[in-house]
């Protein structure tokens, strides 16, 4: 029973999540092939921040572990943000960038960009995010078109169209990769959702895209609440529904593109986290958005940590860990939704 949590409760939850994220990041950096005491992690980061770096251990922490863990946090936050947006805009609790096919679209776009522009720094920094964004937007348009009948969007058709398009685009991506064997090896691992060998360059790129993508949802959190009442009711209460949907979906596509460009296809984070957060904090987006982003970051940092230590020294792609947890969760939601009818 959580009726409209008060401000103090919201602040408490957000503070708790921020603290948990900090802990998860420290743990993410500390554990790995070489175990580093958590105290050393904090010391190394503060040395780096104040400009007194230099030791080899510091280099491992600051240049290898830290960007990877921060990137996991940013990817998790991006996917959770996109999940919150899709679920509100489509009034569909099962909507998520992976299930809607947007991730696959971004993946195909990114792959095509890689094939077309090569793997130079410029290509990766500019071409891949743009390709991913274009792929995400076009896929979104395609899926919504396929699922609409006379202007009405059927929730079940949306999921079916998303899954069908997702499979098709993944197959196309594989086709491109087989055709272009040069980029294949690295891209296949990337497609499975991985965070290996990521650098500050990736962190900066995703931070910029997430920063841009979070502006509209933050300013328009009340519109997102109103969208839960249905498009027509939202319009009656003063929301310019079509325009708002356009910018909000563009924002979602942007952060999904960013996440896919740096880490490939990681499913279910955008589906699970908003649900878990809603149970605690309620459906109002003013609190739901930041809390889901924090929770998504925690989920992916922990998932990445598990991916690294479960079969150490072998790493599992983190997308496999999230799918193992998220697949059953999806089934549970589906059953619950059917029973609620």
């Amino acid at each position, binding site marked *: *029973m*959580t*009726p*409209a949590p008060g401000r103090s409760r919201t602040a408490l939850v957000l503070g708790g999540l921020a603290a948990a994220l900090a802990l998860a990041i420290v743990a993410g950096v500390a554990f790995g092939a070489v175990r580093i005491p958590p105290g050393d992690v904090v010391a190394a980061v503060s040395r780096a921040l104040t400009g007194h770096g230099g030791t080899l251990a510091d280099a491992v922490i600051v240049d290898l572990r830290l960007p990877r863990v921060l990137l996991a946090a940013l990817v998790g936050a991006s996917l959770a943000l996109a999940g919150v947006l899709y679920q509100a805009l489509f*009034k569909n609790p099962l909507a998520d960038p992976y299930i809607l096919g947007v991730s696959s679209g971004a993946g195909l776009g990114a792959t095509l960009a890689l094939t077309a522009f090569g793997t130079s720094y410029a290509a990766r920094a500019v071409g891949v995010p743009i390709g991913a964004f274009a792929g995400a937007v076009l896929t979104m348009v395609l899926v919504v078109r396929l699922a609409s009948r*006379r*202007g009405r969007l059927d929730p079940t058709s949306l999921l079916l169209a998303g899954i069908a398009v997702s499979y098709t685009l993944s197959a196309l991506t594989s086709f491109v990769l087989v055709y272009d064997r040069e980029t294949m090896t690295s891209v296949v691992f990337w497609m499975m959702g991985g965070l290996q060998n990521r650098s500050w360059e990736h962190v900066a790129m995703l931070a910029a895209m997430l920063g841009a993508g979070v502006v509209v949802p933050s*300013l328009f959190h*009340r519109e997102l*609440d*109103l969208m*839960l*009442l*249905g498009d*027509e*009711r939202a*319009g*009656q*209460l*003063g*929301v*310019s*529904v079509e325009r708002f949907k356009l910018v909000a979906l563009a924002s979602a596509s942007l952060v999904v593109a960013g996440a896919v460009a740096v880490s490939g296809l990681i499913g279910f984070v955008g589906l699970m986290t908003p649900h878990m957060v*809603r149970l605690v904090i*309620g*459906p*109002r987006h003013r609190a739901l958005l930041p809390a889901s982003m924090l929770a998504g970051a925690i989920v992916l940092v922990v998932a990445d940590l598990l991916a690294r230590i479960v079969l150490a020294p072998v790493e599992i792609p983190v997308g496999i860990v999230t799918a193992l947890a998220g697949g059953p969760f999806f089934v549970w939601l589906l059953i619950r939704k059917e029973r609620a009818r």
Partner: protein
Amino acid sequence: MSPDGRLLAFDGVTVGYGARTVVRDAAFAVRGGEFIGLVGPNGAGKSTLLRAVTGGPDVTAGDITSDGRSLVRMPDRERARLVGVVPQTPVPPFALGARGFVEMGRHPHLGRLASPGPADRAIVAEVMRRTDTAHLAEERIDELSGGDLQRLTLAQALAQQPRVLLLDEPTSHLDLNHALQVLDLVRSLADDGMAVLGVFHDLGLAARFADRIAIVADGRVTPPAPPAEALDARVVADVFGVRAVVRTDPVTGTLAVTPILRGADLSPGASQVSVGLVCGSGAGATLMRRLALSGLGVHAGALNRGDVDHAVAEAVGAAYVELPPFGEIDAPAEAQVRQGYAACSCVIVTEVPFGRPNLPNLRAAVESRRPVVLVGHMRADRDFTGGDARALWDMALGAGAMRVDTEADALEAARALSGPAATTHPEER
């Protein structure tokens, strides 16, 4: 406010979905302080017309304006400060607090970065008090009944502080007490200057609360008229295919619409055989309805305007001779009744009390030379003629009239006397 005060005006509006037109050329206006009811059969386009104001269906011709400004082209936020809607569709269930739900109505008044302030919270508290939902403030809307949600939706619309209020069957989920409470509130809002347009399923509620009523049928809207004009029995029969008694309720003083027949073919000339009825004061109402259901015509004698049986006769399409209220049956009227009864298969004398004014009905029946069926007994408490009614009754019995105890027996007899023209309506078991 502009001089004409047309807070909501449909100026030759045609609405529909894509290529499908639902209502065409709607032309009427709601002024501040006025409450107009929209009635009509299901699927006639009442809701479509209402929803077109806030941009649901397409307006393909004409314009919907407020004080001369187009609501169709107005930015959504601005329009939401002017027009509040209580839609018919239920709110999708999600775990939102009721107060937060009502507070959503403040949205069009809030700045981009502003949160609801003390003034907004005061407005929310006030509309929740007026809609009798204050006690629900801490509840979650996904755990409330449909009726509670409907009143919260009204509160949400009122939190917009609109000058125009649109209601789409605002009482469909409410029990009678809450329905009357909500409509009393809406009535008082209109009295305070709001322009109200409401779609109603219940003709009686529409007649009771609306100033004027417009009928939506066959893709057209009639000009709004006072309930007594807009909802006469013929209109109700034409529009809804239901025979109804429409009369002023003696208790509430408002128009009451009571459906009495559905489906029987009551068009003039449909029945070959008629049964005469001596009735009045409601004594013939049930028999008239059941005779009509049996496919028989009815001649109800001479009836005063304002009499219940007069209204029923009109509703079932019975023939009768009309008298002014409390008027006596004079010689010409009696001659007409006599003529009417003479064409009937038989004449039933119901348990109506007799006085000087209506005695000619009984005399016409007894002297009609048609078979007469007498219901009940001519006791002293029915006879206010000093024995003349009794004398006619006995004369009829002497001439071989059939006497029965119940209306059901009388109906049975009338059907037997009318031959194969009498059929059995599904409602008659």
